[in-house]
């Protein structure tokens, strides 16, 4: 097991290197630079001075080498915009994204599996058709549009929920207010993965239900509840877990949109700010963090997978 984990982490290092390299060159290919995004009245000389101060007159390859050297020592540099260390800016915002995504994963996985199972059991009946229809809608409607509609309905018209923000923190924290703030972002972000989980659980469950061992369990005199929720679901979840692993990166890119719509100050909205102002070190820092999260979550999924399916125990 330990060897497996170390092996996977080793592969991840290579992956991280490639991801940072691609990101670094891409962001430098984007037209304009940090100075282009600044106030218009700056003179060309002033701009040139800034470029030199930030070291942007160097070739890209040299700058990447410098960045990598620093990053390997744990220094992700200083944000162009705020002159604060990139690490600090990221860690100020990261907890909010973690809150949002963890709640979304819990919500989507529980609800998705329950709905998927219902859909499979009621195959071909009205409930199943309704669920299938809703999943397709959920998959096809873009989340930025749905988010705005939610704001229009629940915040502007009904005035039930706040339209944006993360709610008061620290001493002013209040659970009800907090939940009111987080519920819409969680639902909208769920739309990026929930329909997939529903559809996958449904098809996986349908496949399992027709297996011979389900017949055996019924022949043993098991209650229908045990047949479906203990024996069938346990098997049906194995492929669903893999899909959840694949969906986590999608969730993070969904967070970029959701956080921007709802003014949720996580790293999703931070990366938009960073990219718009060509804050190269900040973009790179966030990329590193997100890649790390994806790599780690996939590792966790693989470990869970080997726990659930005894046949892959010897994956090391």
């Amino acid at each position, binding site marked *: 097991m330990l060897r497996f984990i170390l092996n996977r982490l080793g592969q991840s290092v290579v992956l991280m290197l490639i991801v940072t390299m691609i990101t670094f060159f891409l962001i430098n290919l984007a037209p304009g630079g940090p100075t282009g995004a600044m106030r218009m009245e700056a003179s060309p000389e002033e701009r040139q001075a800034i470029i030199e101060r930030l070291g942007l007159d160097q070739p890209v390859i040299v700058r990447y080498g410098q960045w990598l050297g620093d990053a390997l020592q744990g220094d992700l540099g200083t944000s162009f915009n705020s002159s604060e260390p990139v690490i600090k800016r990221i860690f100020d915002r990261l907890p909010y994204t973690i809150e949002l995504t963890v709640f979304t994963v819990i919500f989507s996985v529980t609800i998705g599996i329950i709905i998927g199972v219902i859909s499979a059991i009621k195959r071909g009946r009205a409930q199943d058709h309704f669920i299938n229809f809703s999943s397709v809608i959920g998959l096809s409607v873009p989340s930025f549009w749905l988010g705005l509609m939610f704001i229009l309905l629940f915040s502007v018209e009904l005035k039930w929920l706040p339209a944006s923000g993360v709610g008061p923190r620290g001493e002013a924290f209040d659970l009800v207010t907090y939940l009111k703030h987080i519920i819409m972002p969680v639902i909208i972000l769920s739309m990026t993965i929930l329909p997939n989980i529903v559809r996958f659980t449904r098809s996986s469950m349908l496949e399992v239900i027709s*297996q*011979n*061992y389900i*017949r*055996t*369990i*019924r*022949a*043993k*005199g*098991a*209650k*229908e509840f045990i047949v479906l929720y203990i*024996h069938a679901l*346990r*098997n049906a979840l*194995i492929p669903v877990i893999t899909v959840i692993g694949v969906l986590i990166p999608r969730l993070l890119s969904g967070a970029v949109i959701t956080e921007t719509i709802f003014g949720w100050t996580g790293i999703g909205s931070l990366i938009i700010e960073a990219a718009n102002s060509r804050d190269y070190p900040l973009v790179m820092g966030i990329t590193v963090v997100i890649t790390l999260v994806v790599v780690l979550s996939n590792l966790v999924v693989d470990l869970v997978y080997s726990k*659930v*399916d*005894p*046949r892959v125990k010897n994956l090391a």
Partner: protein
Amino acid sequence: MAKILEVKNLVTGYRGKDGFIKAVDGVSFDIEKGETVCIVGESGSGKSVTSMSIMRLVEYENGQILDGEIIFNGEDLTTKNAEQMRKIRGSKVSMIFQEPLTALNPVFTVGKQISESILFHQKMTKQEALIKAEELLSLVGLSEPKTRLKQYPHELSGGMRQRVMIAMALATNPELLIADEPTTALDVTIEAQILELLRKLREQNDMSIMLITHDIGVAVEMSHRIIIMYAGKVMEISETSDIIRKPYHPYTKALLESVPTMDGERGTELKSIKGSIPSLNQLPKGCRFAPRCPLATEQCHSQEPPLVAKDNRQVACWHVDKFINQADTEQGREGDYVE
């Protein structure tokens, strides 16, 4: 002897595009206490559907019992509701299946799967059930039962898995064990061991066995009586010793002749039954075997023969008398030849 099971005029169908397709059409037979009865027939003859109907499992697989009675211990199983049926399944009537690899749940240990069969029907702690499971595993002849309890199905060989299935089926001392082709997926030496085990367990536990097989050799080896099925109908029911001595139905004869023998002459072609079993949605009008039968006449093609009693057996053939006589003369001729 008392009858443990009586199936009367059973009709079971599966939902198709235009109504039910009858996979079993008016089947009647009985099984006595302590008896082994084999149902023999080609694939698609309705053997498995008959057993699934007795267990009332067809209704979970898009099927339905359309007519008939299944009297088990004096009670009609077709009138039971789901919960009553659940209590009978796996406790009084158990079933083992063809593919021991796919018939066991891959994600649970052998111990869990055997002990749960006990716990579904008997009040005891998980610990006690595991101890019972261990006893069952040694009863079915598995070595190191304690280790086996903690293993998963994929860690066992085919023969071992089938033993686990049998242990599971015996967990609650059933009165009737239905074995649906239990040895089809196993190799011959293991097959012999499993059949021997079933025979031993039947004697020890005084249970009845309904063994389903497409291999008439296995049936002859194992059973007291044989039921020959074809395309959802019973063709012949007879004592095993009678049937091998002298089949009364052309289909039975054809089945017996298609078994390869060790003492057959080298180079002679093995007999097979020409044609194939008709599909259930385009059954012939008369006798279902008529299109493949060498004796078929106009009557066979237009009218379905009923299952009638004849010399201590039951046969469904219009030409049973002619067939018996013909067989007698053939035997006589063979006798002459030997002399």
